[in-house]
């Protein structure tokens, strides 16, 4: 399936990337080529095959519901680029 520049722009927004013209120009043919290559999977007969999301198909690994030491508030905030004493700071989300 051909992939257009408009589609690459749409994907960039979904991916939360901010690509300039030069990056979009470079990426569009590269992604098109890779997507054309992976399109070869369409030829594989997978009728009735259960998708395999994981090599070890474990489910519901549980443990006793006990309090354990975790990361302290301070340690969790230590790498934040902007913070105050209680949390992470972001630009205003709501106007006024």
């Amino acid at each position, binding site marked *: 399936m051909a*992939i257009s520049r408009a*589609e*690459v722009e749409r*994907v*960039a*927004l*979904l*991916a*939360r*990337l*901010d*690509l300039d013209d030069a*990056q979009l120009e470079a*990426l569009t043919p*590269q*992604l098109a*080529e*890779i*997507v054309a*290559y*992976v399109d*070869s*999977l*369409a030829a*594989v007969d*997978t009728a009735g*095959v*259960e*998708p*395999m*999301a*994981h*090599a*070890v198909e*474990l489910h519901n*690994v549980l*443990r006793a519901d006990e309090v354990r030491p975790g*990361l302290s508030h301070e*340690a*969790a905030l*230590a*790498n*934040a*680029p*902007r913070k105050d004493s209680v949390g*992470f700071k*972001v*630009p*205003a*989300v709501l106007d006024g």
Partner: protein
Amino acid sequence: MADLTPLSAAKQRSLLDTGEVTSVELTQAHLDRITAVDDRVGAFLKVTGERALAQAAAIDKRRAAGESLGPLAGLPVAVKDVLCDEGEIVTCASRMLEHFRAPYDATVIAKLKAADAVLIGRTNMDEFAMGGSTENSAFQPTHNPWDLARSPGGSSGGSAAAVAACEAPLAIGTDTGGSIRQPAALCGVVGMKPTYGRVSRYGLVAFASSLDQVGPFARTVEDVALLYDAIAGHCDRDSTSANLEAKPTAPVVNEPLKGLRVGVVPEHYAEGLDPEVKAAIDAGVERYRDLGAEIVEVHLPHAAHGIATYYVIAPSEASSNLARYDGVHYGHRTDETAMHAELAAERKAAAETGDKAAIKKIDTALVRLYRKSRTEGFGPEVQRRIMLGVYALSEGYADAYYVKALQVRRLIRQDYDQAFEKVDVILGPTTPAPAFKLGELTDDPLSMYLLDLYTVSANLAGLPAISVPCGMSKSGLPIGLQLMAPPLEEERLLRAARMHEDAFGTAPLATL
């Protein structure tokens, strides 16, 4: 004293045990070696010399006091810069994490510390482990010790090169689609990807969570077994960890396997296989025949779809995992003043035209913060993989790409399950060709991806696999032979690899 650094870890350990060498001397010898060669090799992003010497001195003191010591006591270990080591910077070779300080120890790091290893430094890698050349590091390329104009492979190229250049006897890497085995092959060392779930991923910075696995590098199979034993085992902080005992392999690794059935796969002799690599692999098959193994042809009919399957699943998982880098919690954040000015200018320009649709299209400040922080923090290959993954998971495409790839993944696994009914291990090339030149493939991502042909299937199927040296090309570059085994059969894999090593020898040492 003769140079210690070319010795195997087992030999270094025996010199420590007999008191001929102290851990401080051994660590200093490796630090001196790093000083002598690493400006040319570029294996390390950071050498933690002071800490290593302090660890070594503490171990010497305990040894002198007659205390019992861990299995890696006093041995230098280099670690790929992708595992959290409390209080240390963990960059993943990315601008995004250039200043990120790990708040806790990865289980593998905690196990290395408990085994009394000396953590000598952090090795270079492709950014977030995405790549096969170590050229995607945001900080520096790593050079192949066999030919400095060539790539060491990747993504664990720094770890492979450090071991090949005798800067460390042991190193830790990670393997999502071949990132331990491929650089091991290209650098002439041994590297193993354990079974998915054998080694804890807790504290490993995630790339593709259903494929990532931590594993050992060394110059001998025995040393790989030693390091593997130290890091393997169940971890209750990784819910995908296999809740099974990982029996030590080092005590039995030198015992040959009787009646070994070695599978060879016609599909491995695909188009694009370098004739010198093919000849070296054929010679490896003959070595097993001479050792009394039975050589059995097996088929992996879906092997050819491995790369397409991998390059849907791995980027899909990566796009989800890397969504955490938002410029808010940790990692790079764009300059907010400049960002607000940019948004204000865009709003003003749009308002002047009166185009309501254009005004509506302008990002909110928070979305722009995410977008700019991520675009500035991630390099081109990481952005490419995120884009691929988001595309493959996006509305209208997820069934055609992601779900389809998961179905083919099961077919690939079933091929292996059927093959392993007839054979004990599967033998083939690790890479289609020896090391390529730095810069040769940087503008051609698909060609770079195609080099992963022989390695990705073990990750998709969750199998253990190892690369061992099996020859040298005419131009003096190492060639790797890959062995794969059924899930959880690391002991069999290592013993089979050791048999080959006994017949072939280890690769010679690179001259630097």
